[in-house]
């Protein structure tokens, strides 16, 4: 039974809920492959994309998902928004809510913002990335991509490489993978690890990429955020690439059927060499496509899911 109003953290979803999302994403994948990629399903529903920090890919993915479900969307946030003029976020949310918005998609550089929005609106809320906290829709699209490539999560060995400390992607992906039965190794210099990686649920933490690489089924490369370089968590991009970059040289030590994921945008030559990013192992483009399918599924499930008991009985019988 998928009975949720919001998606604020991956913790809200059970293993069954996640499977429900993935199975629905598969339905929407079929729609996205049609010449006419549009469904009338959510005609008359209004979704506000409240993006308070810059985002191209996540926002575009959500907008397409909304449009393909026939929702009306409203883009708030950005440099012209009232928050820039000094309005508090709560006032912005209350104002938009009074315009009868059915759902907020919230992206902000501060952790916990989607929870704050949910506390101040009657609409549904999806966390589209909050500070260093979580990015649950990214985790779900990653799961979908991995599921399609690998067929199952049980015992799957996933390595997440890079800036775990500042990564909201890891914040959602690690618990999500654990929930689905995968084995997660975090690979990062100590300067880019959170204080307690065990809290995320990782099975193993190591600074030595080459020791674990041959065991991995999925190599998930995180983006090095250039704005972090000022904090000097490592000596140079060159040294980072040497120790943690997925280089052509490392290709040989990878499992034959290992795949490469990256949430994008890629810093080619830093965390990921072009040869690897464009290789047949790479599912990075699939991840982007999965994003639209998974977000359509989530919007569909959240906007209808909690409202009708009969539909839930039916879902439960699935």
């Amino acid at each position, binding site marked *: 039974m998928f009975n949720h109003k919001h998606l*604020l*953290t991956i*913790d809200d979803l059970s293993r069954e809920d996640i499977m429900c999302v993935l199975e629905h994403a598969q339905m929407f994948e079929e729609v996205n492959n049609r010449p006419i990629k549009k469904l009338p399903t959510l005609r008359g529903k209004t979704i506000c994309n409240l993006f308070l920090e810059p985002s191209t890919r996540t926002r575009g993915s959500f907008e397409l998902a909304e449009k393909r479900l026939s929702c009306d969307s409203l883009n708030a946030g950005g440099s012209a928004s009232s928050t820039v003029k000094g309005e*508090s*976020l*709560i006032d912005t949310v209350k104002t938009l809510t009074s315009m009868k918005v059915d759902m907020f998609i919230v992206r*902000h550089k*501060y*952790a*916990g*913002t989607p*929870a*704050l929005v949910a*506390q101040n609106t009657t609409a549904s809320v999806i966390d589209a990335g*909050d*500070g*260093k*906290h*979580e990015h649950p829709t990214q985790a779900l699209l990653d799961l979908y991509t991995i599921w399609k490539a690998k067929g199952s999560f049980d015992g799957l060995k996933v390595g997440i490489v890079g800036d775990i400390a500042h990564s*909201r992607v890891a*914040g959602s992906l690690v618990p999500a993978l654990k929930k689905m039965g995968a084995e997660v190794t975090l690979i990062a210099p100590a300067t880019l690890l*959170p*204080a*307690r*990686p065990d*809290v*995320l649920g990782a099975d193993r933490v190591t600074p030595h990429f080459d020791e674990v690489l041959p065991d991995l089924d999925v190599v998930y490369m995180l983006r090095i955020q250039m704005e972090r370089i000022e904090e000097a968590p490592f000596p140079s991009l060159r040294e980072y690439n040497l120790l943690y970059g997925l280089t052509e040289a490392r290709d040989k030590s990878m499992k034959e059927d290992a795949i490469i994921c990256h949430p994008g945008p890629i810093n080619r030559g830093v965390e990921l060499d072009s040869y690897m990013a464009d290789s047949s192992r790479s599912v990075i483009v699939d991840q982007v496509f999965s994003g639209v399918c998974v977000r359509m599924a989530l919007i569909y499930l959240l906007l209808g899911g909690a409202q009708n008991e009969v539909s839930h009985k039916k879902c439960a019988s699935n």
Partner: protein
Amino acid sequence: MKSLIKNVRAIDPAVSLDQVCDVLIEDGVIKEVGQSLTCDDAEILDRRGHVLIPGLVDAHVHLRDPGLEYKETIATGTKAAAHGGFTGVCSMPNTKPTTDNAAVIDYVLESAEKAHYCRVYPSGACTVGLKGEALAEIGSMVEHGAVAFTDDGRGVQSAGMMRRVMDYVKMFDKVVMSHCQDESLVGAGQVNEGVASTRLGLAGWPAAGEEIQIQRDIALSELTDCPIHIQHLTTRRGIELVQEGKKRGIKVTCEVTPHHLILCEDDIDSSYNTNLKMNPPLRTKDDNQALIDAVKDGTVDCIVTDHAPHALHEKSREFELAPFGMTGIETSLGCVLTYLVRPGHIDYNRMVELMAINPRTILRVPQVRIEPGSVADLTIFNPEEKWTVTEDDMCSKSKNSGFLGYSLVGKATDAMVGGTLTMKEGKVIG
């Protein structure tokens, strides 16, 4: 004006008093303590079942006045203090302008006198504008009534500057109160570094960021012989450092707050309650236990609230943008009674030491005793009153308490400052 408190259990460990008796107050001082006292022209306060103790003093309170009156004023802050059962508070200097000169000390004292809810013992800044760069006019502030010196809210970052402050303050027989926070380690820290910072995706505020400066300031106290008081201590290691210092005979004292004793990082859940955003942050359950043990064994000298009022619009926002701190002066006694006295961690005598006697010793202000001749700064509480912390029941201008919704047992009913009732039967007078 005379008052006669009847049938009250009077407790004052300083004079080894713990008995049900009557207390007669006349002309601002205690006239008589005894059985079956009578006085025809006195206001009679029958307080059977209640407890009378020397007036509570909170050595760490942000009154926000001058400059930040939208959060709290001296009038509302001291009214809240009276409502919480306090007869004196030590105000912090991080006002606007900073309380770093005699004029602001005068302003604070005059405003407090006018409001007349409780005594205010102002502390002054150690450095001009709390910037850590130049000594404030400490001598002149002492002359005008400053009782202690602190750069609370930030701490003095440079060890060299701190040494200068301590050398200088020592001359006036005053205490330096230290907010321990190494900015290079703490940075933009929001919550305890560890489980909470990882779980919530917030920048960590490491325990070491506090402990390093505790260690430094104890060393500087040894070097300068200036008394040092460690403010709002939060960690097990911090307690050990103070213990070691005391053992070595260094003039170090310390305080803890009810919220650091009772709440921990686990209380900050995915709802991101900004009322639990504190500086220093809520630590671990283990730290709670270490602090409680230290309260019991005497390492902790006093319990203070770090009462930090913030307006609703400042707290109702993104966690990372909300200011640090919570109010506490109206819940302090209830929290201590509920979480320390009731479970048997401490008795009433120890509570009086922690909340009435030791704060006065540290602030070097006159003691109050329940004996004839003493100034009548007194607190009466009902140890059995059950109540729930609500915004409506607060006199403070701000309602940012992390204890909202908590059920407490034990509440101040009356407070008297210099023989004048400031609160009677739970209602603040004036």
